[in-house]
């Protein structure tokens, strides 16, 4: 066979080096080309990761046994010889950027799998963290970085970030997902480019807080940012609860950073119970301690009470208050506290709301006490912070039906005091507050509420929500956060601007884990919902970029995509179908072939 010249650019020779010219015949296989190339460059190194990339065709020549003829390579082909793994900067949901080597030659799906296997997977646990993280101190540090939630961002950071203002903006972002059946190189990603790693499908398979620490943390970060950047809408009440949870998660993760992994070390509930039992059985020396634990701390003091419902002109009146079980009793004075109280108020089931202004030294506890006739309003006025924190904590326990003997009493007092501190600092010096001491409440809510409320005004609202979550462990708090996020009506929606067949205007297709929705752009209303359950098949015409879907009951829809390639829509639908098959198989391995069949388009067939 006639020999001809093939020029190959070798990356390792430097960017300015001229291409290496080889004399080849068409029946030479790719492996032979590489061998010749390596001999010619005379560089001694490990070439095992290197492969040929065909620039015009945008493809890797990975089948080394194939001949040049079979690949259709002629003298005009521009080939590059380079490693298949290149560094990329990976931006994680938490905002952390990692630099790591990713595979540029396998489909993005596999590349991502590789990354995830390294970062987020849960193989055999070693000291609560995936074993390979324990290999070196650097890896250990990375693990910590990934598994610990980030502190709340400064309000300025939130304000500076891009926020999608409309559903169309969101659709544009969703138009940028990489094609998972093609490799990074084919999609124009260069060495050292920055790519985002995000949860794309909102169907979270088999999350176990014990094993999925990193995954859970990153999921939380993604959810938190989606809320802070108004990517997903929620009501004001929900935002306050999210804020309270963020505050709590931050606080707990600072005080017990190993919480997540220690819970992993705790084998199961049973062993936890066992250790509890051992404690309960107790040794003889702990007898007095046990008794101490069983007797509730006493709480009594002079407080002022006011009943706004009673038609009296009298203001606050001072009495001697005593906390008993879940009730408060009050007496005329300390001296008379042995006899019958003037009144006893059972707090069980009541609503407790704070009304505090540290600057004005106002410490009010508003109680709404249920009674057969309705709710009775009672205000308790405390003199100072210390007193307030104690009584507030007691009232909260009482409303939950707990006594002061409950172990959470002290921590409740602490959390109230730390919240008061927060109000103090956010109302006082604004800019340069040490970050660990207090958090600007604006860091916990989206910019919409920055405009609506001052940090000082937000504090009591978040505090109000906080009382319901203050006792959660770190894992539970993260889980609660995710649950509330999942319960939002717009949860899990990815948007694409589309043009429905026969329609003259652009509309938005929302893709959710279980359904597709059609949104009218003008009104913003959901016009129609289709569920995957009823879907019979979908077709994509790659030529005219149109997706056609058939549902049961002869429902057919067809649309062309405007803000995204229809491969993205195809991948989303196929991906969610794939997810629904996963739960069925219940195996830990992933049916990659099925994923490609469902999402790959015609390449996969």
């Amino acid at each position, binding site marked *: 066979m006639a020999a001809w010249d093939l020029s190959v650019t070798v990356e390792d020779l430097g960017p300015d080096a001229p291409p290496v010219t080889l004399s080849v015949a068409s029946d030479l296989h790719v492996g032979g080309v590489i061998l010749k190339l390596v001999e010619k460059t005379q560089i001694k190194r490990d070439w095992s990761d290197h492969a040929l990339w065909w620039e015009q065709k945008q493809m890797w020549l990975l089948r080394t046994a194939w001949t040049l003829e079979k690949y*259709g390579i002629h003298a005009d082909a521009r080939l590059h010889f380079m490693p298949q793994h290149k560094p990329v900067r990976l931006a994680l949901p938490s905002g952390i950027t990692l630099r790591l080597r990713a595979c540029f030659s396998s489909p993005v799906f596999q590349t991502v799998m590789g990354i995830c296997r390294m970062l987020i997977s849960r*193989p055999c646990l070693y000291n609560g963290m995936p074993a390979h993280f324990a290999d070196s101190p650097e890896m250990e540090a990375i693990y910590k970085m990934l598994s610990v939630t980030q502190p709340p961002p400064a309000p300025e950071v939130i304000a500076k970030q891009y926020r999608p203002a409309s559903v169309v903006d969101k659709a544009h972002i969703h138009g940028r*997902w990489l094609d998972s059946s093609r490799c990074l190189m084919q999609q124009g990603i260069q060495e050292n480019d920055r790519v*985002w790693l995000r949860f794309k499908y909102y169907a979270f398979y088999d999350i176990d807080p014990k094993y999925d620490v990193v995954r859970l943390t990153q999921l939380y970060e993604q959810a938190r940012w989606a809320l802070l950047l108004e990517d997903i809408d929620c009501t004001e009440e929900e935002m306050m609860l999210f804020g309270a949870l963020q505050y709590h998660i931050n606080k707990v993760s600072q005080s017990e950073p190993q919480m997540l992994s220690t819970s992993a070390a705790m084998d199961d509930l049973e062993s936890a119970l066992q250790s509890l039992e051992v404690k309960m059985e107790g040794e*003889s020396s702990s007898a007095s301690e046990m008794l101490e634990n*069983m007797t509730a701390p006493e709480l009594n003091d002079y407080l002022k009470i006011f009943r706004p419902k009673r038609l009296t002109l009298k203001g606050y009146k001072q009495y001697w208050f005593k906390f008993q079980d879940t009730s408060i009793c009050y007496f005329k004075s300390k001296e008379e506290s042995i006899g019958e109280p003037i009144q006893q108020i059972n707090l069980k089931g009541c609503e407790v709301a704070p009304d505090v202004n540290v600057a004005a030294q106002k410490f009010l506890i508003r109680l709404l006490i249920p009674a057969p006739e*309705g709710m009775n309003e009672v205000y308790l006025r405390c003199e100072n912070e210390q007193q307030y924190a104690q009584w507030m904590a007691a009232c909260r326990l009482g409303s939950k039906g707990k006594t002061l003997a409950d172990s959470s009493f002290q921590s409740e007092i602490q959390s109230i005091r730390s919240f008061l501190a927060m109000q103090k600092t956010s109302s006082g010096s604004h800019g340069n507050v040490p970050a660990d001491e207090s958090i600007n409440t604006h860091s916990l809510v989206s910019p919409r509420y920055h405009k609506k409320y001052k940090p000082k005004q937000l504090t009591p609202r978040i505090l109000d929500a906080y009382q319901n979550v203050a006792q959660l462990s770190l894992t539970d708090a993260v889980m609660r956060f995710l649950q509330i996020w999942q319960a939002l009506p717009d949860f899990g929606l990815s948007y694409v601007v589309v043009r429905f067949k026969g329609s003259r205007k652009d509309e938005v297709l929302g893709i959710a884990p279980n359904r597709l929705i059609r949104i009218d752009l003008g009104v913003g209303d959901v016009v129609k919902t289709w569920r995957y359950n009823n879907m019979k098949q979908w077709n994509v015409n*790659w030529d005219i970029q149109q997706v056609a879907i058939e549902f049961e009951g002869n429902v057919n829809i067809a649309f062309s995509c405007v803000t995204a390639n229809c*491969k993205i829509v195809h991948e989303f639908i196929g991906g969610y179908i794939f997810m629904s098959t996963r739960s069925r198989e219940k195996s830990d391995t992933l049916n990659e072939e099925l994923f490609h069949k469902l999402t790959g*388009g015609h390449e996969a067939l």
Partner: protein
Amino acid sequence: MDDIDAMFSNLLGEMDHLSQATTAQLHQYLLTESLNELEDHDLDALVADLGSNSTKQTSGGADNQTIAPAMTQESEPAAALPLPSNAAESSGDLQMSKPQTKAEKIKLALEKLKEAKVRKLIVKVLMSDGGSKTLMLDERQTVREVLDELFEKTHCDCSIDWSLCETNPELQIERGFEDHEHLVEPLSVWTRHSENKIFFVARPQKYVMFRDPQLFYMWKKKEQAGLSGINQQAKQLLLKGLGRRGPLPRLLPKPHCTGPSWTFLRVVSLLEGGPTSPFRAEPIGRVPWAKTRPPGARLRAPTPGLAPGWGPGPVCHGRPYQGRNAPDNIAPRIIRAHKPLHHSKVAVQGGEYQEHFGGSTVIVPDIEGTLYLKEDGRKVWKPRYFVLRASGIYYVPKGKTKSSTDLVCFVRFEKVNVYSTNSYKQKYKAPTNFCFVLKHPCIQKESHYIKFLCCEDEHTLLLWINSIRIAKYGSVLYKNYQVAVKASSLQTLHSGAPKGRSACLANPKVTLKTIHMSHRQTSSLLLLLDTQKSEMHHPPPVYPGELQPVWI
């Protein structure tokens, strides 16, 4: 050390004293007031429940004659089953004999403290057939347990619809207790002269959200077109959708050692851009891909005859090319018929989905619409547009949109229960009789803290009430349902067995329970029944009895 010892014996003695006092009190009451008013079968039922309490009771209040025959009657079952009664005695001995070690003492003290705090109620549950059953309720008993007990006593069909339901004649409201609730708790907030009653009735609405999920999750569709033809399979799928985010925390860890156990494929990189990107100022083309890849370059197949596609290489494996020559120009190149997946989904129903997430979020039906609201203390009912979310009921303020950020919170569910109502058109001049009420369980009388809402029709009312229950209880409701289904299927199995056997099964259960009770000292509250009085007050057969709480 001696001090502690002394302290303990003091403590124990005091508690014994205390409990005896309460029992004595209890007895006095039982004897003097109500026992002779109770009908015979009520007494029998009570006696069966009280069981081995007898030893103490007789010692406490043996001086009464009325109780004596009853007591002899009740000692029979205990005698018939020697093992349990022995157990009762031995535990009684344990109490008497001096505890050996301190650890034991502590344990005993803890137990005693706990027992002393356990509240008990005697209640009369009214049956739908006009009869009634008297039960002794322990604070720790859930509604589910009480239902099971009633199943045994009534030999009903044990369907999942059976529920315990409280009615409040004053407010003309009623509510079915949820299976996980501790029955004593809601009952103990009844007032002294309450006319509230408990019914044991079949309520088809109890688990309607699981039986007919399409009503809730496809309610909009119902408005558009009739939704009659939904099949069982589709319902199950809908249910799964419901359960998907309502998983139970898994108790046992999965064997994670099988193979590479990563599970994380749903992460896919997003190109540079997005929120933080400097690209954001740059307008994104209508088809951003076109920029990076001229379509002509790679949308062509390398060889003619292969389908036009992005990638090189062979494309159609045995599938004929139908591309642009296909008649409708929609080339079915990636047909994935769903059939196989579809079918297999059905098989997974129940269970699988509970493992997705360790938490307990359930998708709340996105119910919304105009309801009439009776504003605090006013007589008029004003229409407002309400939206249900997991976090509460919201309304759309005047001139605002339905978007999340504009919604105003109307009520949250933590502290309120939802009640259905009875003829509010008459009572409160409501636009229709399809009203529901949200209130704190403690509130028993009319108050402006009660939220009154009125729906246009019965179906809307059903949607709202039960969707609120889904929002309030979340996955707990689903768990209750599963337990109920299990219980009903078990019962159908048992019903085939000969009657003698089922009686055998029933008996030990009762006695075992009574043994427990012998250690518990009833403390404060007792609900007693007064049938004669009730018959005078409430002649209609639907309300044959009345519960009159008595506070001791």
